[in-house]
């Protein structure tokens, strides 16, 4: 049933000289889902996306889109927002959007109409005839996003779409992504912001150091990992926290997250705490945050790197 996948990577590997940017990456994006590609800067997200888009050619492995020849599918069905934003600075906004539609087969009049309503929706009503270079960075990014979706693609591939937007516009973009999803569009986006991914994604793929760490349905993943984390708030002694069941303790909100070792029983911890004289305000078996899951699978180092804001570290090409 290869037709069920919008994107399928098969053992894809890309090397730059001695550096391996993506290492035997197997990855499927089922049709109709929102899928997040997560990982720290330099982990290989952009390289993977550029291979999906045919900008780079894998040294090994294969890429297929909608079960077919990626070149043809790409031109007809995909909308791509690259990480490095590029625009024709001298063009007028609506003209630029219309052009991007036109090269993907949207007639000019139709492109103009759609472009106009998108500009309205994104609060850029007055900018249709302004030159792209006269807009702010954030506005240019919106223009580019409109250009990405103007041909109503079946698959949206967005490389770090939220970086560079203020919180209000991040919410607007999230809303739009959900809209597309409701209409059946498949969305693959990369991010290093775990919270965003957690809110938006149905599927996540975590990569670290060029390798896939895990790739799963987010709900199933959280359910499977649920046993592992306990949120506690308490008064009194805390020496009971050093027990064999507890792998790590993290400060979270007003209390602590206890990350348990595999197979550990949280009941034991509660017993030990009570007998040590701790007075519990809260003892709560929580869904692990994506961040914690990532740490658990990729190690603390990778996770710390994942917290670094975009642009603070140069992404490898």
């Amino acid at each position: 049933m290869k037709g069920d996948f919008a994107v399928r990577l098969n053992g894809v590997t890309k090397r730059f000289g001695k550096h391996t940017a993506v290492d035997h990456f197997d990855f499927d994006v089922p049709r109709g889902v929102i899928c997040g590609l997560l990982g720290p800067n330099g982990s290989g997200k952009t390289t993977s996306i550029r291979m999906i888009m045919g900008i780079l050619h894998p040294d090994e492995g294969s890429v297929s889109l909608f079960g077919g020849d990626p070149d043809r599918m790409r031109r007809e069905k995909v909308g791509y927002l690259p990480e490095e934003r590029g625009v024709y600075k001298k063009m007028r906004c609506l003209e630029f959007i219309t052009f991007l539609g036109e090269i993907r087969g949207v007639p000019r009049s139709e492109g103009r109409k759609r472009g106009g309503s998108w500009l309205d929706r994104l609060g850029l009503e007055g900018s249709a005839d302004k030159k792209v270079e006269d807009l702010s960075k954030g506005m240019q990014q919106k223009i580019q996003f409109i250009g990405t979706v103007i041909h109503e693609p079946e698959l949206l591939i967005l490389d770090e779409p939220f970086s560079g937007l203020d919180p209000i516009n991040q919410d607007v973009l999230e809303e739009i992504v959900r809209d597309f999803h409701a209409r059946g569009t498949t969305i693959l986006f990369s991010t290093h912001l775990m919270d965003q991914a957690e809110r938006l994604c149905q599927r996540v793929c975590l990569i670290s150091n060029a390798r896939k760490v895990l790739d799963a349905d987010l709900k199933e993943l959280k359910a499977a990992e649920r046993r592992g984390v306990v949120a506690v708030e308490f008064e009194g002694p805390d020496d009971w926290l050093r027990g064999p069941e507890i792998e790590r303790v993290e400060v979270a909100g007003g209390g602590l997250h206890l990350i348990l070792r595999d197979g550990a029983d949280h009941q034991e911890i509660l017993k030990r705490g009570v007998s040590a004289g701790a007075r519990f305000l809260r003892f709560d078996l929580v869904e692990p945050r994506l961040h914690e899951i990532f740490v658990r699978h990729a190690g603390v180092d990778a996770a710390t790197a994942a917290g670094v804001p975009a642009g603070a570290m140069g992404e490898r090409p």
Partner: protein
Amino acid sequence: MWTNVRAVIRREYMQRVRSRWFIASTVMAPVFMIGLMVVPAYFAQQGDESERTLAVVDGTNVLYERLASKLEEAGYDVFEQRWHSDVVTELRQMAEDGAIGGFIMLDELTLETGEAILYATSRPNLIRQVTLRGAISRAALEFQLQQQDVDVDALLAGGELRIEMLAETVSGGDDPQFFVAYMGSFLLYMVILVYAISVMRATLEEKTSRIVEVIISSMEPWHLMLGKIVGVGAVSMTQMAIWLFVGGLAFVSGLPMLIAAQPELAELSTIRDALPGLGVTGLFVGFFVFGFLMYSGLYAAVGAMCNSDEEAQQAQFPVLLLLVIPIVMVVGVIENPSTPLSTGLSLFPLFTPILMWARVAGGGAPAAEVALSFVLMFLATLAIAWVAGRIYKVGILMAGKRPTLPELWRWIKEA
């Protein structure tokens, strides 16, 4: 497939035609040229009519008729004043009153040496001096020769050198027309260079701004390159059409105006005779089209393999050299259009636009060679498109350092 090429063509064309640079160079340049012709003419017309009225006192009694007809041709009003003892005083008075611009005294010495005296209220400009001097000495010369029973008119017309060509040639006229050949070659060089470089810059800009990643995900690199070249080419054709139209207008209407105002410049009208006919103009356009296609392909490849303006400046040098070599050799080729060297060089496709044009306009290119040169340019265009298309395809998405020659060779093989 072709809708996206059309979109790229339209974008390139509209962006450029609307730009200030295009409007300035297309409209302002001819306006400026016409201004150069018309404004001095206008000022000349403002000059006092009386300055053009001359009296002639002919002490020789034989020169007046000849001189008067020559001066009238040059736009003067001339009348003869019989010699009498007070003639100088009388004419001086007329000149001071502004009735005449001055008067010329001819005497026996004029017949022997061409010397004469011009009394004038203001110093005549150089063109007038030359015109008057020429008219006087020529009148004297003609008179002297006639005394010897020589057919003065035929001889002084400069004789005639009839040229019988032994092979059929394509040319603008019977005489080698250095001016048209050279200016045409130079114009070809300029326009090809300007527009081919503009293809390179556009490519480079797309690459450095990364917009190309979005474009390439929607269309084949080859289509993008094609659209770009055709779009820029269409702009160049628009510009040339406007220039030709305005230039033609200038010659048809501006030149007579100029000559009417400054009759000494009547010789300029011979430029019109030297201008190429429709057929040769057609060949010019043909040379331009192929020249542009070949060089813009090469320049597109250069743009695609570079990452910055500075890099491109260096990388374009070999291509620029290919365009400069023929312009350096063009004078030699115009002067010796039929030597084996000229023939060989003008058949090398990358040199053909400039050098074969020079031979055609200069009158020394057999039709068969011209036809062959077009076939060769056509084949070269295909070859360049193939090679440049491959370099473009790999280069346009390639960041990092500029490729070395072996790397370039690998791109061509693997693309």
